[in-house]
């Protein structure tokens, strides 16, 4: 049971993020929700690579000796970096949008932005 705990926590984090996106009225909180959900996915991606007792992919105690069976999977680490960078771009863009929206409306509350209803 304990072995599954990190995955369950990951799911909880993801659900918190989705909950924030769906239920919050404040733009900043929605953006935070997206960030939290994104980090839950990134965390999950890192945990996929995990191997009990594994070590860094290129590291081996004796030079020249390669032991793939005790190494953690390095590919998800590279992937997670990429996905963090993409997340950075999305977040920066959405924060810039939020600032511009605040400039137009003077509020972060999405229920007061009614330009597009109907």
């Amino acid at each position, binding site marked *: 049971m304990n072995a599954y705990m990190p995955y369950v926590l990951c799911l909880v984090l993801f659900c918190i993020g989705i909950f924030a996106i769906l239920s919050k009225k404040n733009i900043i909180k929605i953006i935070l929700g997206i960030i939290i959900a*994104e980090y839950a996915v990134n965390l999950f991606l890192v945990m996929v690579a995990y191997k009990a007792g594994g070590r860094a992919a290129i590291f081996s105690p004796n030079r020249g000796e390669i032991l793939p069976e005790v190494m953690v999977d390095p590919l998800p680490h590279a992937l997670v970096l990429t996905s963090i960078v993409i997340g950075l771009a999305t977040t920066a863009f959405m924060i810039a949008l939020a600032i511009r929206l605040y400039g137009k409306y003077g509020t972060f509350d999405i229920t007061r932005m009614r330009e597009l209803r109907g």
Partner: protein
Amino acid sequence: MINEGMIPLFVAVPLAGAFLAALFKRLGWIPDLLGVLASLFSFCLSLHFILDTAPGASFAVNVGGWGSFPEVMGKVVGIRLVLDGFTVFMLAIVNFVALWVSIYAVGYMKRYTGRWQFYTLFLLMLAGMNGVLITGDMFNMYVFIEIASIASYALVAFGVGKRELEASFKYAVMGGMASLLILLAVVFLYASTGTLNMGDMREILSGTHYSGLVYLVFGLLLTGFGLKAALVPFHAWLPDAHPSAPAPISAMLSGVLIKALGVYTIARIFFDVFGFPHQVSIILLVLAAISMGVGALVALRQWDMKRLLAYSSISQVGYIMLGFGIGTPLGVMGALFHLFNHSMFKSLLFLASGAVEYSTGTRNMKEMGGLNRKMPVTGGTALAGAMSLAGIPPFAGFWSKLVIIVAAVQAHHMKLAAWAALMSIITIVYVFRITRYAFLGELKEKLAGIKEVPLLMRVSLIILALACILGGLVLLPQVRKMFLSPAVRVLIGMGGV
């Protein structure tokens, strides 16, 4: 000369154009020229792959030389770019539309400041779309989807008014959710198969009985790509985002972006990687039927011309998905053919609505009328697009809808066929609202002083209208063999990644 090493240029050239446009932003006309040249190059390259190779030939290139090695049991370790019949078909459509949209934009974007930003984002979006099409690697596909999406979020907000910012925020939140779900699905697939290459993934998955995990992945992917393709329960962002963008971008978004990011990816992954399981077929048919209905019915009561066209896009994507959902060779062919036609007529109609807005300054159809007399080229081309959308016989849209409905009848989906036919009648109704209120009838006094749009805009309108009129020729055996059939063959399992 055919060289598979040229495949990466589909991404590299628009990307280089994007950054060169950012570098030479002070020289006013250079970004315009770069935008046109980069999309012209991509289009010529895709034509070259269509015309100069055997139909259905498939090319693959391993980025950085990281192919398959015996140490990893013959699996591909790096990113493999693949170009087969389906890819080439989509590349030709995307780059054709991009070429004429960029030529149109040279005239249209004169009103805006910061044109270099427009071209940088436009070319980034093009690079992202081309990347989605040529990649054979799941995670790489996610990255390219994100490049194209983020560029399109920014392009939707290009006008920085209240409407644009709100639409862009909505689009960014929903698009971000979609990307998260896609990434989650990719992670699950990697965890269960140990590879990211689509071809290897198919081989690993085909031997096994699908577990619950794979069904979870189906759900995640359908939701994610459904959000990108704006299928109905997930469509809320599209009617806001597409009208808010500048007209060339509306044309790109509705014409090709939702297809490259949503429809193409659904077809590629579910047909090519998962072998089109029965459950997915049913889900696609249901989503398609709802999309067709909701899109068409809501479009009926729109007065904003671009918003009407945006709802119509939802409905037409439903038709494409119906063809894919049927899953027979005829259905897939109809879907691909309708995809081609929809790209042509919807980008044409959005460009025409942009031309109307350029001249009259309004998008509200109540304030228009009789525009045909003052703007004969815009009016005539829009009429061609509208006829194709409505499915009036000699125009291309008729043939593709006919193929889809016949395929539905052949596959014993009688109710769906009837539903599709009914919705195409409703399509005719809302299309005639555009032509009647905007282009025909009495000219309003307020609009007496309007002029026809500049030459470059007219040229692209005419070319796209020709594509709408002559699009039916794609069904001729000689053209079909070269263009349409290889794509169908890839999807129904004769050849592939």
